[in-house]
Structures are given as structure tokens and as C-alpha cells.
């Protein structure tokens, strides 16, 4: 005796087997299904465990890479201001670095207290191997997305 499966359920099972759900945007785009609950949860999962860098996170990690051993709050802030031309607050820098550290992209250690800082120590940051992989991934994604775009060529 064969088990009866509703057409929708059957379609969904095949759909799952093909692992198309790994790319929900494709499923929505090619008309195989609307944004169902499983895609919604997949998107939530991606957002919760995102392994890509946001724009400002990307900028901060690149600043850390440029500064190397000298990377701490003041130098990171000044480097971004100098190269990007936008004034950022020290609070924004630390909030981003804290987030990156929680993700394991950045590691920090405290330096010695210095008199010009009122006896307070500097907190030095460096990019971890995981952070390096993330910045490479983001960079490759950007390169692929911009490849062949006339608008990008006209700016460069």
C-alpha cells in the first residue's frame, strides 16, 4: 500500500531533497514557492549566526590590519577618519570592536598604564584567523558583486 502524500507536501519533500532551501532567494525568484515558514526560520538562522561583516565592521577590521601592533581605540578612530573621511565616535569604535570580539574575529589585550592617559591603560586589538577569513570572504563577495558593473568602473 502506498502512502498518500498531498501534492503540496510531496512538492515540499522533493524541494527539501534538492536542498534548494539552502538558497531561499532562488526558490522565491524561480517561483517554486513563496516565503514559507522554513525559509523564514532559515533567514532568522542566518541573521543570528551571520558570518559576514557589516560595512562598519569591515572598515574597522581593515583599520586593525593596517595598524598592526599599534591598533587601539585612538589610532583606529584616527585611521578611519583619515582614510574614510568620516568622524566616528570612540563609542562606535568600541561597540563594534566588542561585537567583533564576541564573534571571535578580534582579540584584545591591555597594555601598560601611561601618564598621558591619566594612568589608564590602552586596549590593543588584533585580527584573529577567523576574522581574517571573514574579511577575505566579504572582500571576495564584494569583488564578485561589483565585477563587470559599469557604475563601479566609472568611479574607479
Amino acid at each position, binding site marked *: 500500500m502506498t502512502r498518500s502524500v498531498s501534492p503540496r507536501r510531496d512538492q515540499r519533500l522533493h524541494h527539501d531533497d534538492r536542498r534548494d532551501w539552502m538558497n531561499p532567494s532562488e526558490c522565491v525568484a524561480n517561483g517554486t514557492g513563496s516565503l514559507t515558514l522554513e525559509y523564514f526560520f532559515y533567514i532568522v538562522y542566518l541573521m543570528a549566526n551571520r558570518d559576514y561583516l557589516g560595512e562598519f565592521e569591515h572598515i574597522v577590521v581593515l583599520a586593525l590590519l593596517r595598524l598592526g601592533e599599534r591598533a587601539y581605540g*585612538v589610532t583606529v578612530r584616527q585611521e578611519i577618519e583619515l582614510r574614510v573621511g568620516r568622524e566616528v565616535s570612540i563609542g562606535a569604535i568600541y561597540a563594534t570592536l566588542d561585537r567583533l570580539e564576541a564573534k571571535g574575529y578580534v582579540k584584545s589585550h*591591555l597594555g601598560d598604564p601611561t601618564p598621558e592617559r591619566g594612568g589608564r591603560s590602552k*586596549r590593543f586589538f588584533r585580527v584573529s584567523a577567523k576574522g581574517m577569513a571573514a574579511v577575505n570572504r566579504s572582500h571576495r563577495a564584494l569583488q564578485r558583486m561589483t565585477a563587470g558593473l559599469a557604475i563601479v568602473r566609472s568611479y574607479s
Partner: protein
Amino acid sequence: MMTKSPLMQPPRIAVWLVNLFTPYDQSESIQGDLLEEFAGLASKSGRVSARRWYWRQSVKSIAQLICTGFRVASWLIAVTVVGGFLLAWGLGYLSEKAITGVLVNYGSQVYAHVDAYVFWLIYGVLVERLLEPMLIGFIVSRVSKGQELIATITLSLLWGGLSGVFLIQAVIQVGRNFGWPVWAVPNAFSAVFEPLLLSTFVSPLLVLIGGVVARKHNARRALISQR
């Protein structure tokens, strides 16, 4: 020993405010970074421009830290704020019960000493109304460790906002029932508007003061445990 020119000091209020909002583990580095850049700017561009820069950085940093606090601890803040309101309701209920209990059980003695009764009723209730929000701010701040000021600011804004709505409602109600202007209505101010005015403008401020006291206490304990 290191001595510093008082002219080279950053604005004290800005330093205090930044200290209130920074997480304990970042406080030292953020304050140190701001001071280092301030000293560099003061010697290069002058004290006035450096102080202006310090204030701008402080305001931007505080705004950023508040947004981050809401993002990383939204549940903690929501729970503590709701808890604060429940606590306010509970304490209000208990104080009402206490006053009624005193009047019922010791009524004869109260009426034998009317002056003392009036004195305690006026000042005792006022003190209770002033202490209660401060205590609630303190407790909310202690519970929302790390996000003290964000939780107490949210609570005080909601508290003031809700009381403001009730105040407007009361003004309209009294105006409709007893005529305009409402301040000419006998006993309306002391019976209706005074508690609501207190709750709209003074209580939120007292919640914040309680929050600041608890934050200072938490920060001191965190500093000791770090060392």
C-alpha cells in the same frame, strides 16, 4: 607624582556622563582614549576647540552606547522596566494599606492629636512619594547590571510619559465637570493635580537619581573585582 594643569582637564560633566554609560570592562580604555586625544588636541588647537571636541565625542559615544545596550540586552531592559512598574504598583498598594491600617487601628489616638496627624499625613506621604521612585530606580538599576542607566532612563521616560497622559486626562475631566479654568476649582490642585504633577516631573528624576547611585555602586564593585 604626576601633576596636571587644570586647564588641560576635559569637561568634568562630560567625563562623568561617559563614565555612567560605558560598560565596566571598557570604561578605562574609553576614558583613556578620550583623554589622550583631548590632550593632543588641546596642545595643537587650543583648549576651547578640544573641549568642544570632547563634548561632541561624549554625546555621540553615549548615543552609540545606548543603542548598543538596547540591542544586546533588550530583554533584560524590558523585564527590569516592567518589574519596576510592578514594584511601583506594589509599593503604592502597600503604602495605602499602611495608612489605612494606622487610621483604622489607632484612629482614636490620631484624632486626639490632630496636629501630629496632619503633620505626618502631609510630610510622611510626601517623603514616601519621594523615596519610592528613588528606591525603584535603585533596584531596577541593580538588577539590570551593565545596562543600569539605559534601564532607568527607559523606566523614567515611560513613568513620566504615562503620568503626563493621566495629568492631561485629569485636567480635561476636571475642566468638563467643574468648569474652566481648572486651577480655580477648589481642592482640585491638592487632590488631583499635585500628585500627578509630582509623578510626571519629579518621580522620573528621582528614578534616575536612584539609578545613578546604584550604577556608581555597581561600578565600584566591578572595579574592585577586576583588581
